[in-house]
């Protein structure tokens, strides 16, 4: 389905269509959302491992692992129950699943943020008192890692919650 009107835009559109990527994109967007269970769990584990590496080694070591977890979540989201890049509007059931998923994800991210803040405060006070050299975020990369970690928690927990709320797929794929 190429654009008609401006000749330059038409040619560019034809060029894009020739790559078959827009057709593949339309095909994927028209599909019913899939339930994801293993993939978000793996990506969540990757983000947790990345955060642990950042705490243990600092620098950029953990950041890239957390980034990979977040990027993976970001790329997979359109194909799951939380997918926003669909060709059509969400109906009432799908919209309710998306709301429920985001609510659960946000609550988990908030819980982790509150608990993390308490731990950071405790570690900072402990270190200031000279009792132990405990980790607390200091560099911009530490804060970026924490930000991406919280985003990865929200996205993956949301997908897991939405997948759990989706009924089993229909056996007969009647159209």
């Amino acid at each position: 389905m190429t654009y008609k009107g401006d000749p330059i835009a038409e040619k560019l559109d034809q060029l894009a269509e020739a790559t078959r990527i827009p057709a593949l994109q339309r095909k994927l967007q028209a599909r019913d959302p899939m339930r994801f269970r293993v993939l978000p769990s793996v990506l969540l584990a990757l983000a947790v491992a990345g955060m642990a590496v950042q705490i243990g080694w600092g620098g950029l070591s953990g950041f890239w692992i957390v980034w990979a977890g977040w990027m993976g979540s970001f790329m997979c989201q359109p194909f799951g129950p939380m997918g926003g890049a669909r060709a059509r509007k969400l109906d009432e059931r799908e919209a309710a699943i998306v709301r429920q998923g985001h609510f659960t994800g946000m609550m988990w991210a908030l819980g982790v943020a509150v608990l993390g803040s308490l731990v950071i405060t405790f570690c900072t006070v402990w270190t200031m008192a000279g009792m132990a050299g405990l980790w607390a975020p200091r560099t911009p990369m530490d804060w970026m890692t924490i930000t991406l970690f919280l985003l990865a928690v929200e996205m993956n927990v949301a997908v897991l919650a939405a997948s759990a709320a989706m009924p089993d797929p229909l056996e007969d794929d009647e159209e």
Partner: protein
Amino acid sequence: MARKIYNRLALFRAEAGMTRKALADKVGVNPQTIGFLERGDYNPSLELALNVAAVFEVPVELMFSFRPFPSVAATLLGQGDSA
């Protein structure tokens, strides 16, 4: 936990010879949602229930109920007894 809502959607749809997609297009939902409705996995909103009933031109209580509907055979046998 929401109460289960039973429906006669599959029966009415089969009688009308309508596909899930055709019904879904008429009421503005995903065909998957119609399938989940028929299977009893999803309780519709009042708006969706009224829209579905309107497509088949029946009152909403004939289409949806908190109590299971009797089977077609039982309904027909009941009519036979009373006739």
